[in-house]
């Protein structure tokens, strides 16, 4: 008799993370600007996509969606300034947690 084990969920890769982040940002921060073109490298604060309070919402989303906790000293433009930066930050945190 062979035991049935669930197949492991495919690991999240950066493009998937980026896509989910984009969907979150579009639904929650760009709903009033349907024609707004947001590139992965666009600075979210500078382009008026999120403000400092919106960053808190983003941090909560990252934790709920990807299980990634953000320390106070990690709340920076380098980690959370663009979609690409956030995706890399999340990916790195997940990888280091799984290592």
């Amino acid at each position, binding site marked *: 008799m062979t035991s049935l084990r669930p197949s492991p969920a495919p690991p999240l890769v950066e493009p998937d993370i980026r896509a989910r982040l984009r969907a979150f940002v579009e639904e929650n921060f760009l709903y009033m600007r349907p024609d707004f073109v947001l590139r992965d490298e666009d600075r979210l604060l500078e382009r008026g996509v999120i403000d*400092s309070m919106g960053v808190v919402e983003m941090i909560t989303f990252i934790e709920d969606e990807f299980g990634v906790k953000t320390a106070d000293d990690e709340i920076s433009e380098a980690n959370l300034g663009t979609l690409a930066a956030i995706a890399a930050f999340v990916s790195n945190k997940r990888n280091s947690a799984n290592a």
Partner: protein
Amino acid sequence: MCGIAGIGLAQGTGVEVKTLSRMAAAIRHRGPDGYGFYADQRVGLAHVRLSIVDVAGGAQPLTNETGNVVVTFNGEVYNHLELRRQLEARGHVFKTRCDTEVLVHGYEEWGPQLLSRLNGQFAFAIYDAAAQTIFLARDRFGVRPLFYAVRDEALYFASEVKALFASGEVDATPDPVALDEVFTFWAPRAPRSGFAGVAALEPGTYAMWRDGSLRVHRYYELGFCDHDLEPADAIERLDALMRSGVELRMRADVPVGAYLSGGLDSSITATLAAAASPHQLRSFSITFDDPRFDESQFQRDVAAVVGSSHSVASMGATTIADSFPDVIWHTEIPIVRTAPAPMFHLARLTKACGIKVVLTGEGADELFLGYDLFKEVSVRRFCLRRPESSVRRKLFGRLYPYLDAPGATGGEFWQRYFLDAGDCADPVFSHLPRFALTSWIKGFYSPDFAASLDQTDVISELRDSLPERYHSWSPLNKAAYLEMTLLLASYLLSSQGDRMAMAHGVEGRFPFLDHRLFEFSAALPTSSRLRGLKEKEILRRWAKHILQGETVARRKQPYRAPDAASFFGRGTPSYVLDLLSEDSIRRSGLWSHKAVTGLVRRCASGRAATFRENQALVGILSTQLWMHRFVESAASNATLDPKHADVLLQDAAPSLP
């Protein structure tokens, strides 16, 4: 305190009392104790009275000895006893004890120069029958409102815009630029009102109507001196001015109460009022079920020390939403915060307790640099001198400590928000972060509405309008000037002040807005007002002598009320969903319905946590209410029966209705 209205005709075709009575009925809430009319071939005046001084004898309109100078007056002249003595010495004969009467005799004696002699809060109209002129005037800081419209060479004026509409001669047409100012500065800049062709008389100005044309003149300028040294007798002078300012404002023939927020400013006014009152002081506060906004413990502590009989207006989960339509009826302009709504309830409670005059602490934050905005200006300038300094940037973490958003107010994003807000050389540098935050609402404009504003840049208009002397002032004095002209007169004293109190026939009095105190504060070094990041420094230094230590040392807690949560917390009133529905949004034409639907979804799910979304929700909802109540509905046709008027002066005017 009262309400006034009137009409001036270029041709002597006769003013109808019926028209005046409709105008008066529209603002009856301002003066429930009586009303009166004057009408002749060219001019009509109406008055609704809240009797405070000379209760028995102060009915209006009121005339001089010969009956050819007639006044309708809203407000108080606190130094009327002193002016009366001067006028009696010059031969004028008074027939009442009322402060109103110094206006008619003072105008006869001094003409428009009368205004510089008045210590008070006022908006009034004087008809000089001999000269065939109407003289309209408004106090220095804009405590009392006055609006006017000119149609076919006829002048219509009133304390509130709804009375102009009730005349039947003035239409309620939205002014797109005024709305754009609301969504930048929080309120239109006078002379703009919210309506096209309706002007607000600017604070510190008067207007003269003659032969079908109106000319506006400024009689008072806000000025600042950038002195380096505080005068040696500054504390003694502040003490004398504060006591005199309160004592003058206790002059009334009815009991005077006090609003208590629990902060420094209202604690000062309540303490001095209690000392000057012949009765036990009645005090009134707002409490919130939501502990993030509630200051009831501080209020109770101050009331206990002052010895006042204290009453509270409690804001439950639905209180603000339930009254918001009435609030917008009285503000007559969209708003981006719900903060006026609790003031509406506070006035209702005050009136129910039998008090119709209250002292309040407004003005102290402008005069003594109490707002966080002033600290923000200092920190931004300090950091922009060395933007690479991470140590300097940490100061941003000390701004707005009351915000309940851990992680949002200390980090790099918070710092960047301020650092990127604008250049120090910009004349309106101080207010650029606020303008940017508020302007986020404009992302919800419909394409058509946005296109109608294509050529409009209200911030550039503001820059261009600043007086020459402004550019020589220090950054903090520039910020204080902007705060007084943009927010104090147009929003705090209006939407949150006069309109909410007078909705229930309650008069607010403002000891900190005594012009002598303003002139004293404006000549102090800014370091006496904001020392480092310690606000209202000289006021605290002085207040140690009259208040207990804890109140003096307590950091400023801004008055706030729940915004989006008021409408999407425990149940959403049907009017909210109706007015924010696709049909209603399309009908008003101002907003993108898809964007509003997205915002409503965010609010309903409790995720609209950011300032800008809260402001957007309140701004859009209040605009929809405003459109519904003023633009899409017919003006009131109610009248006050002239047969029951306290005063009915007619000179060959058309017959009564």
